[in-house]
């Protein structure tokens, strides 16, 4: 490679561009007053953090609501997504491309319009509870990611092991449980991680589906972010990262356990 210094500089700029914004966020969450042009504030306080977990801060409520919706959405993804991905990866049939593109459509076409329609449906049905209807909207948004991830792993797996097992007399469920699923675990974890994170960060679908009443974390934070109270927003943002970080750690731990189990078994 000829242009090495240039390359390194560009990557360096990009890295700083990604990383640096986190620093003032942490600083802001521990101070109330931080005038320009000070690089560091002079007075530190934890007021914002105490406000967050007070009743008017609604932090716990937000986390709990987000968690419930994301959990329902993940469940829906698993029930709908795994069979679909499996069928798409293992069968050839007429119109497969059309089916696949319908399943992935929310990635390629802005989905706000269909969520407005769904909200009107839900209003007419009336018996759906806010958690469920919001989770349905989140499933719509996340299903493409999940199906694509699982589909990809199924393609890598191929059908050979299935055929061997079915010749040996295993039924479909046994094949899925003992052959496919263990091989699927890494992409299953990645897909679930994506679903949880994407569901967790939705603002507009949650707002539209619940009419602005189901306070998930993004809905709690948005008004603050618009009002410009830097200290409180920063604290909220860091709080927002906590579950994501936790999920990431769980993801890597599970992945590692899975890998270790596999190497032990192969010994």
């Amino acid at each position, binding site marked *: 490679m000829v242009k090495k210094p240039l390359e390194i500089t*560009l*990557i360096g700029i*990009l*890295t700083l*561009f*990604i*990383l640096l*914004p*986190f620093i*003032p*966020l942490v600083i*802001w969450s521990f101070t109330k007053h931080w005038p*320009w*042009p*000070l*690089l560091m504030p002079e007075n530190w306080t934890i007021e914002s953090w105490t406000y967050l977990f007070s009743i008017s801060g609604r932090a716990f409520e937000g986390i709990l609501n987000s968690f419930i919706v994301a959990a329902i959405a993940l469940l829906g993804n698993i*029930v*709908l*997504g*795994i*069979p*679909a991905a499996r*069928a798409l990866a*293992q069968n050839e*049939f007429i119109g497969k491309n059309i*089916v696949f593109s*319908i*399943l992935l*459509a929310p*990635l*390629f*076409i*802005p*989905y*706000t*319009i*269909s*969520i*407005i*329609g*769904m909200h009107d*449906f839900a209003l007419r049905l009336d018996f759906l509870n806010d958690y469920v209807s919001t989770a349905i909207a989140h499933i*719509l948004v996340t299903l493409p990611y999940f*199906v694509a991830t699982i589909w990809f792993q199924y393609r890598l797996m191929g059908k050979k092991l299935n055929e061997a097992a079915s010749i040996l007399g295993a039924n479909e469920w046994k094949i899925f449980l003992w052959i496919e699923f263990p091989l699927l675990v890494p992409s299953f974890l990645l897909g679930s991680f994506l679903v949880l994170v994407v569901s967790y*960060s939705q*603002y*507009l679908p949650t*707002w539209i589906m619940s009419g*602005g009443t189901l306070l998930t974390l*993004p809905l709690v*934070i*948005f008004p603050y*972010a*618009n009002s410009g109270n830097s200290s409180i*927003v*920063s604290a909220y*943002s860091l709080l*927002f*990262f906590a579950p994501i970080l936790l*999920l990431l750690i769980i993801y890597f731990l599970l992945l590692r356990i899975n890998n270790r189990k596999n190497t032990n078994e192969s010994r």
Partner: protein
Amino acid sequence: MSNGLNEDGLKMWEKNRLRVQLNSYKGLLGILPALLFMLFFFIGGSFHALCLSIGSSHQISLLGEEDLLWAYKELMNPSFFQSVAVSVGIAAAVAVLSGIIGLLTAIFLATKSARWKWLHIIFQLPIGIPHLLAAYLLIQVFMQSGWYSRIAYYFGWIDKLEEFPVLVHDEWGIGVLLAYMWKEVPFIVLLIYPFILKLISDWRDQARALGSTFSQTVRWVIIPILLPMWVGGMWVVFAFTLGAYEIPALIASTSFRSIPVEAFHEYSQFGLERQPIAIAMNVVLAVISLLVGSLLIYMQMDWYKRGRRVW
């Protein structure tokens, strides 16, 4: 007697044939729930919203006349066309820029050894961070009184706050562009990096044996194979940026009229009568994305026909 047996045998044969047929289709059954879900909610929901925007009874009773397309007629004005141009322009800019930067970054990462592993982690950080917070993070640093302007002051590059360029709430949407890039470049990298890694390991030696430099390998091998996926990724970014609300709502100035922000404003603040307008705006966005997608698919087919030639 023999006739009865025959009938039984026929029945059994019929049953068996059915079972074989069922078995070959059973694998396909798994698609049904997800397909029905998408058909019902995504396509049905869009269709329902479309109907709401066309046949709004509220408006008919208010005006005393039947004007089914009033919402769309109301959109037929220069200021909305300008909004369309702004939204499409920023979405296209974000898609193309993050596509190019993402590709270059992915190639860079793929050619580096395991010692650079930490870079991957950094480049995956923004994936987990919601757009709402990405917007806020970038406001925090790029504001005129933000952290970067303080650093610039510290180094003596500027003396007054006003000397720092206006990057947030600016007229040209630079802040919006920066915030989207912060989110979407890592997305493109995540999407294409595994493929580039595999392509390089598959083709590098062969290309080198044939006497090509690395940049020639990229131009003649990697890009032609990767093009459909890369362009697909840019389409995803385009469609997302076109329809997303949080970043323009927080970073753009009020004169920067992006459609999602306007539509949500109409939807949430002016009551039911204005809802058809909000839907109509979103219909326009969906149609644009569909058109761009069809164009891309057509171009791809044409490209396959011409033997995957790249420029």
